[in-house]
């Protein structure tokens, strides 16, 4: 047991040190919620299962979400449509796909650029522009 007790004596200060670091980080308003919840390879094979679709998404997934297709479009969507000439996607599942905007002609693309430039210079604190910045961050994360 001498070995065992020696190990414990070494482990306890290490864990306490980690605890102190985390508490200190918590006091400085750091985000402590970025927890890696990946199961071990023994418990769960990495990657999607055999029923995954071509995008690697698990098809055995369902949601209680109410589809917003029958809701009145928000003012921002109307404005975006007016600016780009493109009707916004009505499903959040398909929203992140870039396909609709890649087919924009030059005029529509220029209109979109003007809107983006105006938002950047005049509405940096607007929810719309903040959402846009978050989308950029997501693209960087994804790539």
């Amino acid at each position, binding site marked *: 047991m001498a070995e065992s007790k020696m190990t414990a004596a070494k482990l306890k200060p290490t864990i306490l040190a980690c605890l102190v670091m985390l508490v200190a980080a918590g006091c400085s308003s750091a985000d402590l919620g970025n927890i890696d919840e990946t199961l071990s*390879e023994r418990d769960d094979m990495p990657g999607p299962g055999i029923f995954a679709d071509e995008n690697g998404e698990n098809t055995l997934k369902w949601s*209680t979400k109410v589809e917003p297709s029958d809701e009145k479009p928000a003012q921002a969507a109307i404005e975006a449509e007016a600016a780009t000439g493109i009707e*916004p996607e009505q499903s959040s599942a398909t929203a992140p796909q870039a396909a609709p905007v890649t087919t924009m002609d030059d005029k529509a693309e220029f209109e979109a650029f003007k809107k983006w430039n105006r938002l950047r210079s005049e509405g940096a604190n607007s929810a719309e522009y903040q959402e846009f910045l978050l989308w950029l961050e997501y693209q960087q994360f994804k790539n």
Partner: protein
Amino acid sequence: MRIKTKKLVPFLAIATTAAVLLPASASAVEFEMSGQVNRLIMNVDNGEEDGTVHTDNSVSGSRVRIKGQGDLGDDLTAGVYWEYQLQSNPSSKITEDSLDSDGIGGDVGGGDDFSLRQSNVWFKGNFGKVAIGQGSGAADGSTEIDKSGTTVIQYVDASRDLLGSMEYGTSGVTVGDARSAFDGLGRNDNIRYDAAIEDFALAASLGNGDKVEVSARYKSDSFEIMLGLWDDKDSGDDVQGEAISASWLAANGFNLTGAYSGDDSDEDPTNVYVKAGYKMDKDSFAIDWSETKDLGDGDANSVSVAWVRDMMQGIQVYASYRVDSLDDVAGEDDITALAGGARIKF
């Protein structure tokens, strides 16, 4: 900003669309079902009896799980985690009698085994994550850090999972009597707190009978290490234990894994584990050795070689050969097992 301006333009319409739709999805609750079937055919010889059995691989038994989560707003998420294991003839319960009969219990279906593994609810935010219910204690898995890619058939506690009820010859001692990985207090009913910063994580749990567990972990792509401490307090005999395990995976696929653990029960038993492997694109190979001392009558050790192939998305096939030995007990004999199986995830 690294993204070029030209790329920004298309994102505008997408971002606007997302801004409109996200509030609608904020109240959504998503559920996902997954699981696996993991079957094994194993030829076992304990020096007295030998035979081939069809089993469910208890290293990672057949199971189904449901996970659900919903956004509560203000960076707060809530969820549920439920997992049930359903095994026919679990390998950990195979005995000498199972080698020449219809299976465990002597009847088809006699060896069916069902157990709840996870049933908990959780809340996560900038403060970390809090879970209550049945789930892993904070020190569970602290001996199991392993980047070899062969863990479906070969890991620190594989002896007990594959041959736990087999007797060494006529010694009267089973593998389960003589071997343990001392891997924390396993899954139990508890309240657990997790927090993480970058690649570091800390966890603590408090369960029935005041059992307490804490752990610290570092994880990167090439290296991972975990430390765990526990005390079963009033739920047992106030046994305290500690464990450490680490694994390193080189860029060329070579990998090394090790673990050491023990507790202060009876004779202060300990377990040591070492493993070396080579991981390629789809195939992983490894050899391991481990020894448990002072747990029961005699010290016990094992050595094994294993191969695992990721055939395609969600399908693994594997094989291994292992020898489990017991020292200093009359009537003991080695147990050998040649195993092959497949795991399919859905």
